[in-house]
């Protein structure tokens, strides 16, 4: 298929691996932000093909993994209420809350439905005027435009039985938090290609300048990822910092201005807690006050639920690139994709699940 086969070409991948090996003279630690890239790296075995000098650490770019526990618990309380149709992306259904998950609510008779687009939730609201339709709006800058459009459209149509639990997160503040941590070991970033497709690349410039790191927007196919790594390594080796786009077919400097405008119209930046990591200033999006009528947490008055995370899981350190999944004592024993203890074991974008699936058990 066009744009796919070409960027999976083993010959091009081999040439890139050779060039990376020729370029690298010292050890470097590079973080891929996006969980989709973590998954692709494991799936194609790129971590094992790269020179030993290059360590890839896996970033927090998995929406399922970082959605805070209280959001999940609040979602569970709402989903269990009679008269509610609770809608969510499929990945969120198995995320463990304090005691439950959405699947179990469903098996006990809750009307929990998986949707592929927030517009499906909107359609359910139109078709079921006597029911409350609630959508769990999570994700990064990639899902925010769609979720914002659903709210805007609900407002335009005067739908009063549609609401969202909004728990969006933003990538650049998380990168700032990682780079500012005293124990940070990340020296360069593969920026999340599709986040950049929406937001553009300009917000990374000050970050790259302040911390003197290369930030390279990168795609998702093996050739894309290796190209991103080569670009990052070239910059690291020559002591350069800055933003260089390695995903030109999808990422424009200005991103998608139409999408950004609607996100800005519906949402506003707020401090946000990241599961396992803690609160990062100005790292989330919430509904603007003008759209408060669509805020499910207000509508169902669940704002007071504030649970604590169980202590066994080291997902927080994994999401910050400080540890890798096999360093967790529960990895593959107590904690498996079928019985996840932490959110990083749930979604295929989570580092623990990716390591488990592709059997990176012994590799530390």
């Amino acid at each position, binding site marked *: *298929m*066009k*744009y*796919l086969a*070409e*960027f999976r070409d083993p*010959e*091009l991948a*081999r*040439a*890139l691996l*050779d*060039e990376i090996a020729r370029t690298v003279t010292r050890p470097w630690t590079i973080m891929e932000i*996006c*969980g*989709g890239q973590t998954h*692709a790296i494991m799936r194609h075995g790129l971590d094992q093909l790269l020179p030993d000098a290059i360590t890839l650490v896996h970033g927090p770019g998995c*929406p*399922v993994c970082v959605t805070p526990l209280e959001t999940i618990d609040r979602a569970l309380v709402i989903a269990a209420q009679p008269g509610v149709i609770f809608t969510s*992306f*499929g*990945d969120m259904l198995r995320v463990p809350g304090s005691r439950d998950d959405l699947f179990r609510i469903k098996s006990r008779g809750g009307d929990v439905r998986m949707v*592929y*687009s*927030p*517009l*499906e939730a909107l359609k359910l609201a139109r078709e079921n005027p006597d029911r409350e339709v609630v959508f769990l709006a*999570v*994700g*990064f800058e*990639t*899902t925010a*435009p*769609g*979720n914002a*459009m659903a709210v805007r*459209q609900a407002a*335009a*149509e005067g739908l009063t039985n549609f609401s969202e639990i909004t728990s969006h997160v933003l990538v650049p503040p998380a990168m700032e938090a990682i780079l500012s941590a005293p124990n940070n070991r990340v020296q360069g970033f593969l920026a999340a*290609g*599709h986040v950049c*497709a*929406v937001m553009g690349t300009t917000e990374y410039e000050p970050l790259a300048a302040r911390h003197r790191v290369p930030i390279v927007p990168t*795609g*998702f196919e093996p*050739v894309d990822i290796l*190209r991103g790594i080569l670009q990052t390594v070239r910059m690291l080796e020559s002591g350069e910092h800055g933003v260089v786009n390695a995903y*030109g*077919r*999808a*990422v*424009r400097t200005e991103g*998608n201005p*139409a*999408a950004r405008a*609607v996100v800005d119209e519906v949402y506003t930046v707020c401090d946000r807690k990241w599961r396992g990591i803690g609160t990062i200033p100005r790292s989330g999006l919430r509904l603007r006050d003008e759209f408060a009528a669509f805020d499910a947490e207000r509508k169902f008055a669940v704002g007071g639920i504030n649970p604590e995370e169980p202590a066994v899981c080291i997902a927080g350190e994994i999401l910050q690139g400080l540890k890798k999944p096999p360093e967790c004592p529960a990895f593959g024993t107590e904690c498996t994709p079928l019985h996840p203890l932490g959110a990083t074991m749930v979604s295929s*974008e989570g580092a623990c699940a990716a390591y488990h699936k592709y059997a990176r058990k012994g590799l530390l």
Partner: protein
Amino acid sequence: MCLAIPGKILEIRTDGPLPMAVIDYAGARNEACLAYTPEAQIGDYVIVHAGFALQVLNEQEAQASLAELTRLSALMEADAEPEAGS
């Protein structure tokens, strides 16, 4: 929710509240909203997340990066050959 593969637009519908398209992802079909990519045409490849097309892939850029990578690959081969022969 972050499906990273591009899809090809097969059909565009403008009769609903928002412009929609039928998208083919290497065989699997689904709908996506074109509100953010109004310039998209049938046959274009788009990046879709959570049911919204977020960007039309730029064919020229794709060709340019492939050409650059093919040059790199040819260079690597040219480098490797004398070694193999010696």
